[in-house]
């Protein structure tokens, strides 16, 4: 059972970090300041989020900044879209079916 990623997001502080990262790319220090959590704690949370594929880190000048991994969230969007498209196709199918049935009855 791979609950890693979900567990990563299921922790309140980590969700707040994700919420903050929606707005901007931030360093550990920025996040600590923004949320009022000690830096070592923030680092610990960021490690969990990284391992779960939720965030990535990159060097910018002499800082290391964290950002959300777009791919991860796009996967979710794509998946939901595919479900939506299935229903669109199905409702089109119903239209064709009803039209054909009405013709038969005439």
């Amino acid at each position, binding site marked *: *059972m*791979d*609950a*890693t*990623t*979900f*567990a990563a*997001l*299921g922790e*309140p502080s980590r*969700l707040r970090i*994700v*919420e903050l990262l*929606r707005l901007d790319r931030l360093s550990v220090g920025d996040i600590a300041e923004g949320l009022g959590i000690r830096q070592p704690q923030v680092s610990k949370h960021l490690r969990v989020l990284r391992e*779960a*594929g939720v965030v990535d880190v990159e060097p910018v000048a002499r800082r290391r900044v964290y950002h*959300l991994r*777009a*791919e*991860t*969230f*796009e*996967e*979710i*969007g*794509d*998946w*939901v*879209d*595919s*479900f*939506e498209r*299935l*229903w*669109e*196709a*199905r*409702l089109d*199918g*119903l*239209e*064709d*079916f*009803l*039209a054909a*049935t*009405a013709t038969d009855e005439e």
Partner: protein
Amino acid sequence: MVLQLFRKKKELTFERTYAAPIGAVWEAWTDPDQLRQWWGPPKTTIAECELDLRVGGRIAIVMVAGEGMGKYQGTRWPMEGTFTDIEFPHRLVYDARSWTEGKEDTTTIEHVTELGLSEDDGKTVVNLTVTLNEIGSGAKMAAFGMKWGYKAQLDELDTFLAG
């Protein structure tokens, strides 16, 4: 942005107007022989279709990928659920889960489907709401490895998103 996107899409709503009387639409949706003729999107077939039309009754439909679906050909997508509300000919509600056969653990989606029908000048307006409750990490979500199967955590996420 992204989490909001997910929240926004968690409930899918559709409205269509069909040039058919309400009774015909109701039958198309509740008679297995009729339902199997339109339920599958293009390139799929319906291998099984069972509807026990009473509250607590079972709905079970298996879609199979046809030739046109290339590497997916032969893949079976079952959907199985229970009717929770039936008000002929206006309202049909069922709780169900859908999955990819052989990958039940990782692809199961739980959803509630609410169908509303109303007649307007000989035409039928279909209002459909599909609410996705729990989402397993399917093929497309494998990269993320995200499991939505833990209700408590999902509730927490909901609270977060609402905040």
